[in-house]
């Protein structure tokens, strides 16, 4: 099978079930397919237990899929044992070897490749310099901070110059400030090495800021793949709209080119197809981002302000319309422009409404 040029990794219909302690089975991966471009930064995003880490472990060879194919640079690797795959993993727990120095940790993988001593020494130095740990090679992992241990784990995997670097929630153990720094650092490393990075996270901000491509997982399936901006602006399902950023999810009735939502009247969907999305009785879900919602004071309005708070430079407004509460953001609104109890007109400008799958 010939590989598409520029594809580092190709995953086709990979499924994996695990036995549960109760004797049942759980489908961790449900026919997952994904293509990863060479030299790209792909983020697997989803809540815990959605299967994203299982996919990473299948690529690494730490789990074997029940069915499906995994191709690395056009070559199937399903049957290649973990130690022969040209992919390396940065583990969530770092998994550093506690009885070895930092330099020996980094050298381990190179020694397994039986490289000459001088070359190993050179590569270890280069890897440690790349993650800014030069001079700490003689330390034990226990003598380093969490952030430094993280860098050792990175250097250890990068020193092997893998075709794909897999990162399993690498930043989850770091505090917020350190995490932001490491995000920038990871982007830099990816650019400098041109190695394909594949990162697993449950943090949507992390996914949005780091990925060239984001794959959103929900219950063992990839529900949407695309550049972060596209996924944010055009969520395909209710889950994606809700999980990435904030969204007002409303239920309406579809007919021809319009959707009727109680409290808002008839909305234009701007030729957004509701085919195959709407239920038999025409019920559909729509998603509207809070920053797209317009709110104007109006005596004959359809809603009542429940809460209006300044957060940073934005005014966060909650408006009760009928039975639902709509969240809205107004950038640069004057303080006191709106306050609780005001009657307002809530509207969704054309183009802001997305029809999403349930």
């Amino acid at each position, binding site marked *: 099978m010939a590989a598409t040029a520029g594809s580092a990794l190709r995953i086709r219909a990979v499924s994996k079930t695990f036995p549960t302690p109760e004797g049942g089975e759980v489908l961790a991966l449900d026919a997952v397919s994904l293509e990863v471009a060479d030299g790209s930064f792909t983020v697997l995003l989803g809540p815990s237990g959605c299967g994203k880490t299982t996919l990473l472990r299948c690529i690494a060879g730490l789990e074997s899929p029940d069915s499906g194919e995994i191709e690395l640079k056009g070559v199937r690797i399903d049957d290649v044992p973990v*130690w*022969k795959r040209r992919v390396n993993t940065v583990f969530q727990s770092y998994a550093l070897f506690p*009885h070895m120095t930092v330099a020996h940790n980094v050298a381990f993988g190179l020694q*397994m490749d039986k490289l000459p001593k001088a070359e190993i020494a050179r590569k270890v130095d280069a890897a440690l310099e790349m993650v800014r740990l030069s001079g700490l090679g003689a330390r034990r992992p226990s003598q380093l901070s969490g952030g430094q241990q993280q860098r050792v784990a990175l250097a250890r995997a990068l020193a*092997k110059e893998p075709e794909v670097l897999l990162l399993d929630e690498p930043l989850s153990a770091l505090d917020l400030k350190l995490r932001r720094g490491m995000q920038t650092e990871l982007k830099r490393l990816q650019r400098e090495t041109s190695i394909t990075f594949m990162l697993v996270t449950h943090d949507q901000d992390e996914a949005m800021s780091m990925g060239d491509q984001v794959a959103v997982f929900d219950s063992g399936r990839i529900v949407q793949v695309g550049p972060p901006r596209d996924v944010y602006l055009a969520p395909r399902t209710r889950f994606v709209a809700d999980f990435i950023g904030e969204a007002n999810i409303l239920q309406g009735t579809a007919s021809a080119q319009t959707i009727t939502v109680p409290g808002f009247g008839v909305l234009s969907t701007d030729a957004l197809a509701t085919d195959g999305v709407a239920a038999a009785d025409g019920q559909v879900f729509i998603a509207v981002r809070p920053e797209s919602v317009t709110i104007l004071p109006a005596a004959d309005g359809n809603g009542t302000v429940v809460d209006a708070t300044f957060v940073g430079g934005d005014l966060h407004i909650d408006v009760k319309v009928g039975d639902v509460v709509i969240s809205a953001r107004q950038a640069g609104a004057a303080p006191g422009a709106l306050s609780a109890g005001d009657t307002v007109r809530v509207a969704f400008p054309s183009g802001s409404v997305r029809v999403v799958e349930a």
Partner: protein
Amino acid sequence: MSRARGTGESLKNFPFFGVISIIVFAFLYVPLVFVVGYSFNANRVVTVWKGFTFDWYAEVLTNNDIQRALMNSLRVAVVATMMSVLLATGLAVGLIRMVRAGRTFAWSLIMAPLIIPEIVFAIGTLALFVQIRVPLGVEAITLAHVAFCIPFALLPIRARLRSIDLSIYEAAADLGANEWPIFRRITLPLLMPGIVAGALLAFIISLDDFLVSYFLAGPGGTTLPVYIFSMIRNAITPGVNAVSTLLLLISLLIVTGSYLITRRRRY
């Protein structure tokens, strides 16, 4: 909580707390003080103090029978320790891969000798050895010691093995290591403190074993504890105290030595 602390406080103020502690310590150590103290007694009558002397040590150390018994004990203990630690390490590493149900059953089987009455084990081993014609003596004792030392050696090795994060093995495999390099470069060095502790335990257990050794000694297979027993059958001589003190000294040296070694390598 304040209540919990209050309980601790009142326990400390319990009037007999100090007395009980003293009784316990006396119980544990007065016999030892007796043995060590009277080993320096310059009187052939053991219980009457006459003066300080090293004579008994000189006598004991030049006694050929005691020398032979000590050598037997050390030979048995060294070989039994090495064999049991080797087997225990293999068992621990092998069993971790077994399926859950089988593993629990296997562990119980291996650990059972810890609670089986030693006399039962001794009689059983003797009967077996006689049946299959294993000649009694040092080799027979060594074989039996290997068997009952395994669970003791296994305890600290298993505890150590369990404390190793499984992702460390995964990381090693991910970096290109297969079974043997993982065992040699990762598992074995990380297990070392457990192996040292297990070896120490096995050595001490073997060195001071009396019952099994007594049953399997045969002619010429006398170990030090068996010899000491034969000495007191006639009379408690100051020499018995001296030999016992030497045995105590060997144990103390080994424990202290291994403590110092393991303390240095802490991750």
